[in-house]
Every structure is written in C-alpha cells, then in structure tokens.
C-alpha cells in the first residue's frame, strides 16, 4: 500500500503500511524503515518527541476502549524502557476519528476489516520524503479477529498488548525482523515455529503472551534509530559482504550470535554488492550465520518481488570480535548454491 499526498503544508509525504499477520511469514533480523531515491536513503524516525497519539473511543467484545488504551500504553512504555534508546510517547486523549484518517493526528484503534482475514493489525505513516521525519502514524487492530487483554492470555484470542508492541515498533520506524522460523500450513500461509524478535511479521498463536517483551534484535533496532545512554560508544557493529561465486547477494539475511549472552541480532545485505551492517552488538565474540530469505513473503521485508534464495545457510569460518564503539570490517561470507 503506497500513495503520495500533501500533509500539513509539507511538500511531499508518503503513506506506508506495515502489517502483522496471523500466520504467514519467516526467517531472522531487525530492519529500519527507509526511503531511497536518487539522492540516497533516509531512515524513518520521529524527530519531535514525545510522539503524541490518540486512541479511538470504541472497544470490541472483551476489550473496552479504556482497556485498549491501557494495552497500548503498556506497549509504548516497554519501548520507552529500553535504556539505550530515547523514545517518548504521550497520550493525547480518546477520539472518534478512524485510525486511517488523514488528520495530522496519530490514531490507534480498532477497525473492522473482514476482507483482511489474516491481518491482525497494520501501521501506516505520513512521512517527509526529504528527511524521513514521521509526521503521522496510525495503527489499526482488526476487530474482525478475537482479542484479549487477560493477564495470562486467553485461548482462542490474540493478545492485544503483544500485537500493540509490534505495531509500536513500526510506529517508531522499525520494519520487520526476519528472526524466526516457520513451516507451511496445509490451508495456505505459514505457521510460526519460533520467533526471536517482536518485529517478526507473524504473530505467536492466539493465547500466547510471549510477545509482550522485547528481544535483543528489537532493542538493537530501536537503539540504532534513537541512540541514547552511550549506545554508540558501548556497542559495536559488524560490516561485510555476502557473496556467491564472487557476486553480492541482495537480501541475504545475516545474524550475529553472542555466545556469552545468547543474543541474536540480525540484518540484511541491503546493497546489490551484498554489503551488510549489523549495529548494536555487545563488544566481544560473535558467530555469524547467513541464510536465504527463502521461506518468507519477501514483500514483508523488501519492495521487490524476488531475491536470490538459492544458497545454503552458512556460518562464517572466523569468530568475529566486535570492538567497543567501532566496527569489525572486511568480513566476506562466501556461500554456495544449494
């Protein structure tokens, strides 16, 4: 979903949408939302904080509008509590507007979209194309699916706070992470086997509340966009290339594993040359693994229909030492066709 329009006197803005599915995609890593044109690329971010938002004044069976507000507030607070990121939100009151209205107000609320049967929620933006500044961000939760705010979850109902936490990540400018594994479903789509990031595009099963906490991949992502608390000085990055027969592989998914903490943080090769950067890593020893994005809906991650996924998952043969406040460079991970 993508269209252009004028917003608030700004020259050009674009509406983007990120969606979380109730059973559809897989893989591993944080990815920032960004825009690219001939002049280069910019990351989407709020430049004015706190980011002010409104909540719709309509509930759904089992969830009142006040419970909706509380679930959203808890989700936003979880992001605010990341010590290495500086993000602030402010509740601006209830509203009768719809979440997708173009009204210069960021609105979160329920919206009935029975046509989107596998979509639990979706986030859209108005952004300044030149700077990447987020001007407005709306989130809708599909009221056609059953929701719950029960403390320990509720069988057969999706946990509203978990999904709100994912959408709040988009609200901040994060795209989908590929840190997860899925398997095909007999009736179509994919079933998630496991996830290592709240920003993984497929939700846990109904009744599961594991998605109420952030994972290292999510924390690295938000800290990369809104660094604070010595994030740049106290963490490091790895930078390198993924190649097959000497050529770069765009979209290859690279994950850094820290044996000391068990943290998994990933990113993609975002250039045709196969270059990748993973930031926000704890200084020390890391194992690197690269895999194709072969069991995902590529459109959940990239605005292009296909990628080279014909290669074998591969570990880098060297242990990578991440420096404090700097980067480990000159890494080339050569992969082979399956």
């Amino acid at each position, binding site marked *: 979903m993508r269209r252009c329009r004028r917003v608030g006197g700004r020259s050009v803005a674009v509406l983007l949408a990120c969606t979380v599915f109730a059973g559809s995609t897989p893989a591993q890593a944080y990815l920032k939302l960004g825009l690219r044109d001939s002049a280069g690329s910019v990351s989407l971010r709020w430049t004015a904080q706190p980011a002010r938002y409104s909540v719709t004044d309509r509930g759904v069976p089992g969830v009142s509008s006040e419970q909706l507000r509380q679930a959203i507030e808890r989700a936003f607070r979880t992001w605010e509590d990341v010590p290495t990121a500086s993000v602030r939100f402010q509740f601006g009151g209830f509203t009768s507007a719809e979440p997708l209205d173009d009204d210069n107000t960021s609105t979160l609320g329920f919206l009935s979209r029975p046509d989107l049967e596998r979509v639990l929620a979706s986030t859209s933006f108005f952004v300044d194309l030149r700077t990447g500044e987020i001007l407005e961000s709306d989130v809708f939760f599909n009221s056609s699916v059953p929701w719950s705010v029960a403390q320990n979850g509720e069988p057969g109902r999706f946990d509203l706070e978990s999904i709100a936490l994912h959408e709040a990540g988009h609200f901040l400018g994060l795209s989908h992470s590929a840190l997860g594994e899925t398997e095909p479903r007999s009736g179509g789509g994919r079933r998630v*086997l496991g996830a290592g990031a709240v920003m993984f595009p497929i939700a846990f*099963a109904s009744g*599961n509340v594991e998605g109420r906490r952030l*994972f290292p991949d999510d924390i690295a992502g938000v800290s990369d966009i809104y660094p604070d608390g010595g994030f740049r000085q106290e963490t490091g990055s790895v930078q390198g290339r993924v190649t097959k027969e000497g050529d770069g592989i765009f979209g290859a998914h690279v994950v850094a594993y820290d044996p000391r903490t068990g943290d998994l943080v990933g990113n993609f090769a975002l250039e045709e040359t196969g270059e990748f950067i993973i930031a926000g890593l704890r200084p*020390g020893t890391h*194992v690197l693994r690269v895999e194709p994005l072969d069991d995902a809906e590529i459109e959940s991650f990239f605005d292009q229909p296909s990628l080279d996924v014909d290669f074998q998952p591969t*570990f880098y043969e060297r242990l990578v*030492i991440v420096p404090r406040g700097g980067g480990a460079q000159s890494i080339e991970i050569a992969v082979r066709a399956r």
Partner: protein
Amino acid sequence: MTRAHLAAGMLLSTLVLGTAGEAFAQTRRPSAGTRPSRPSPPFRPGSIEVDVGVLWLGGIDFGSGTAAISANGIPSADYPLFRTASQLRAGPAYEGRIGVRLTRTIGVEGAFQYARLPLETRISGDVEDAPSLTASNDLARYVVEVSGVLHLTRYRIGRNGSPFLLGGAGYVRELDESQALAETGGLYHAGGGFKYLFSERTHGLIKGLGLRADARIYFRQGGFELEDGDPLRRFVAGGASLLVAF
C-alpha cells in the same frame, strides 16, 4: 660458509665455552651427607635471579550453548537454531622472570608472559543444515604477575637442586588478532617446582647458571569470556627455563 670460516667459528665457540667452563669450575660443593650451614652464593639474601623460558598453558573450556529463539507454544520454550561449544586452546607461552631473595628461603618474583592462543567455537546442529564448522580467532595474551616464593632449602634434589613453592597474582590483557578489542582481567596462581644449578661461582657478576622447572595452577577472571557472569576459570601451566643468578 667455507671450511676456513667453519673452523674459525668452531674455535670461537670452544674459546667461549672454555672460558665459561673455567669461570664456573669453582663450584663449591658440600661434602656428601652434610647440609650447608650457609647458603651457596646464588642463594644469598639480596641475590637476583633471572629466568627465561617456555611455559605450556593449558586450555580453558568455555562450555557449550544453544542459539535459540522463543518457540510458539504455551508455555513458551526455546526453539534451538544451532549449538556452540567454545574453548581457548592450549599452547606455548614465553616467559621471563626476575626474582630477588629477601631471606635465605623467601623471595619475590616479577614475570612477563606472552602467548598466542586460538579461541575456537565449534558450531553444529543447525536447524537448516548449515554445514558444521569450527570458527576461530587467535588471541594474543600478555601477562604481568608477581609471585612470592618459598625455597624449601631443607630439601635437596640431586646435588644442587632445591624445590620451591610459589603463589601470586597478576594482570592479563588479551587482544584479538585484528586488534579490535582488548579484554583485561586478573590472574591468581599457585604452584611449585625446583631449581637446579649446574654451575656456581663466588666471583664475578654471574653467580650461577641452572635450570628451573615448575608447574602452576592458574585462576583467571576476566579476559575474553564466552559465558556471562565472568566466572573464575582454571587452567594449568608447566614449563622450564634457563636460570641465571647474579
């Protein structure tokens, strides 16, 4: 090298060895069955000893781990992606020590060690069948340490050997092969060994030449670590060195 040069080289070597043999020919040997009432010259209080040698450092097992994400179940459990097992491999270190006798039996020593040791992680059991391999990175390790030494002069090993005990603490600095990151920590050691003088003299700068051999157990905290919480790591070391007493 021509035959003439070779002959000259042999002659020079013979002269040097001959001089050394003459200088150290005055070794004072206690008569059999008696214990020396005074320490021999190299063991006098105030004497200085320099040792240069090689140490074999034992490896450190950093244990195993599993890279895992959260499984989609209630309650949630780990969903493993692959396994790792890490270790710092054993290897040689080069060591220099300098010691001073404070009393006939007690001395203090300062030491410097350098070693280059492979840090390795075995990666296996990948969920998508990525080939297993051992990833590595060489660490340069620098150690500065101080030891207290108790010379057990009541006991003899052979004619000119005596055992000793030592214990002390030090500082370790480890640097990866790309010199991107230095990790530091503390070292504590205890051990024992013996020193054997094969030459002694009463005159001149050098009072004795000999061999030193010892074994130590080390406890390390800090340095490169692959488990959380900075656990105390234990490893053993043993080596031999050339001893020069002044």
